[in-house]
């Protein structure tokens, strides 16, 4: 029972292996891809979607999904733009953004726990509400923000660019909460079976609500980092982030059915992998119109590998009734 076969061990590490294969592949094709500067650059570019993906991971672990993250980013950024242009202090703008994230997450959490409507529907509704609200607020015009935002993106903490440091910091914190606190372990229990968790004395509703609030706040943090890179709010701000975040989490091995997965290394690797693909394709001067096709093909392959892997793991763990003579008996 205790021995874990080497085949099994390799299979468990497929996200890491895939990541290394992509890095190695682009490294061979392009000399500058593996330079420290470029790798740091990938990390910085991956940060906004990466932070959103961390929050998404918590939601996916409870067997839910949060489709509203991109819309929350847009609302937070639109309000921030209005406030900044009206001369409000930078710290107040940031706090307001986080507050918006928390409130929207709270709305998701309320409807998911109190009405029993499927998370997919609740958060899809909030996606439309959020995007509609922000489009009305901005009147679909782009806003250029004061330089403080861009400076934020360029700040370094102990030599590490702030976006990357923030992303990794949040990831480490989340991983700690997931693995080493009662709240974290209960997330996994709720994700496996919400009703069984309730019967076991877990406050399932409270846990679900908190998880959606966290996801909303992470979306707001992602919006702050994205503003730090773009310096402007456009009508397409935050679009498709929900899919990037879900892809990153799933690439990292988090199950869409809940109860399985982790932020480290899983989701972080997933986010870096997706960004490495885009970055590598740029370096190779690939046709930009081909990016989505290539990226999606690789993501699909990865998820396919993942399900093949799970089938193999299940077969390896299948109980044998009788030991064949040549294997000896226990």
């Amino acid at each position, binding site marked *: 029972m205790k021995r874990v076969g080497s085949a099994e061990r390799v299979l468990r590490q497929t996200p890491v292996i895939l990541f290394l294969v992509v890095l190695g592949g682009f490294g061979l094709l392009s000399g500058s891809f593996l330079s420290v500067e470029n790798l740091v650059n990938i990390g910085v570019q991956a940060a906004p979607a990466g932070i959103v993906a961390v929050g998404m991971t918590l939601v996916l672990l409870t067997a839910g999904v949060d489709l509203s993250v991109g819309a929350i980013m847009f609302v937070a950024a639109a309000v921030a733009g209005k406030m900044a242009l009206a001369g409000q202090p930078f710290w107040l703008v940031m706090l307001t953004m986080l507050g918006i994230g928390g409130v929207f997450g709270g709305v998701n959490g309320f409807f998911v726990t109190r009405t029993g409507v499927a998370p997919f529907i609740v958060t899809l509704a909030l996606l439309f509400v959020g995007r509609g609200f922000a489009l009305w607020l901005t009147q679909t015009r782009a806003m250029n923000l004061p330089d403080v935002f861009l400076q934020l993106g360029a700040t370094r903490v102990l030599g590490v660019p702030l976006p990357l440091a923030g992303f990794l910091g949040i990831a480490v914190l989340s991983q700690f909460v997931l693995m080493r606190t009662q709240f974290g*372990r209960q997330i996994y229990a709720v994700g496996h079976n919400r009703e069984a968790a309730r*019967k076991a004395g*877990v406050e399932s509703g409270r846990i679900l609500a908190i998880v959606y609030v966290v996801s909303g706040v992470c979306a707001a943090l992602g919006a702050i980092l994205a503003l730090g890179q773009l310096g402007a709010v456009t009508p397409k701000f935050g679009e498709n982030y929900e899919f990037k975040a879900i892809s990153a989490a799933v690439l990292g091995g988090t199950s869409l059915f809940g109860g399985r997965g982790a932020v480290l290394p899983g989701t972080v690797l997933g986010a870096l992998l997706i960004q490495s693909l885009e970055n590598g394709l740029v370096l190779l001067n690939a046709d930009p119109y081909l990016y989505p096709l290539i990226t999606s093909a690789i993501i699909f392959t990865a998820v396919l590998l993942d399900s093949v892997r799970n089938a193999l793991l299940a077969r390896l763990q299948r109980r044998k*009734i009788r030991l064949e003579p040549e294997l000896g008996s226990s």
Partner: protein
Amino acid sequence: MNAVAALEFAEVSKSFSGVRVLRGVSFTLPAGRTLGLVGENGAGKSTMMNILGGALRADAGTMRLNGAWHAPASPAEAERAGVAFIHQELNLFPNLSIAENIFLTSFPRRGGVMIDGRTLHERTAAVLAEVGLEMSPQTPVERLSTGQCQLVEIAKALAHEARLIIFDEPTTSLSARETEMLFALMARLRARGIAMIYISHVLGDVMRLCDDIVVLRDGAVVAQGPRAEFTIEKMISLMVGRTLDHLYPVRKDAARGAPVLEVRRLSEPGIVRGIDFTLHRGEVLGIAGLMGAGRSELARILFGLDRFEEGEIKLDGRPLGRGAPRDRIRRGLAFLTEDRRAEGLCFEASIADNMALVTLVEHTRTPLRLLDLGRWRAAIATMRQAVRLTANARDEQPVRTLSGGNQQKVVLGKWLLAKPRVLILDEPTRGVDVGAKFELYQLILQLADSGSGVLLISSEIEELIGLCDRILVMNRGEIRGEFSRAEFDRERILQAALPGEEVRA
């Protein structure tokens, strides 16, 4: 009886939408004793225990636990009061470790937040030692067998200092050996002064384990008292409210017909080896063996659910090949699976939809193959009568709402509609009460009398002896014994089923 009773029920009643499920139930469980709770499905046992365990609230009446009022509003509250409930379907989380499952709501912590890994490990190891489970606290629960999961549940009860432990049908999915280990553990718990309530359809176990017995029928206590006042026959007649002459229908000595299913040297590495037998028309052939002997796996292979490496399966003299279940059903094979909830039924779907699942295509009209609703309904109605399904359920009602016995009748009805040449039954009476069992037995024998072959897998040797014409015994994936009706002997069948080393011991 001078000490304070562990548990007292006084006139507890409960109704669901106007139907009275419990009618003023009163009984007393003296401290440190084990109480057997028996009754047919639907007699109100589960409702009673759910009220005790905090999942439901009583409409009227009171409970006292060790002298104190007990009216839990939630399972968590009942747990704090010292009541632990070992459910029939275990409530563990396979994606968490043993330690995490035990302390899910009460992790030892440092600084109020961070889990104290070392204390968690030590405390888990301590309770695991008490229940005799030698495994690391970090082992993921998905790696444990059902028996081991049950030990974890009991360890959890001990970790929460339970004073009263409820066991609901704990042996249904345990092997004979695991059952013995459970009983030994229960004896140790009893010696420690823990009161227990034991619910089971296996009345022999109830007689063996319990100090006192309470018999429930139609929501009311019909008898209670020390074990000495009961016999198994008495319990049964109290439960069903009439005297059952036989536990098993009379088996006519049917003339053995032509071979219908022939299995030759069937092998799949690690699963079964050299399986060789012939099933005749009109014959009920039993397969005995311990849990994990390969009986269900053999059935899955015969039905085309799993592959096999060598050997041959013939139906009516023609090879069955390696086709999928779909082909086998067409050839006349039917398979009532062990786990009716997960494999035998579409749990949320209606009685009618479940019954028609296999034979839907026969109730269609060409050219567009549209469903002929009239013919379909008529077929369902006939079959409902044939399997004696409860008249209280509507065709559109989800099977989830039926009792275990009626659910099994739906599964059986589904296959009987297909008029099978061979019916394979895997533990058909598990979790089914005495009355419904008898009816299922009659249906099985009727099918055999009409000329089909029946392959009956069961862990209850009595059942096999009561129904079968011949019994094969499987052990570690091989057939290790064959008994004809004249040779039926409980001891010898059990001997053949036990692994070699245990016979020596």
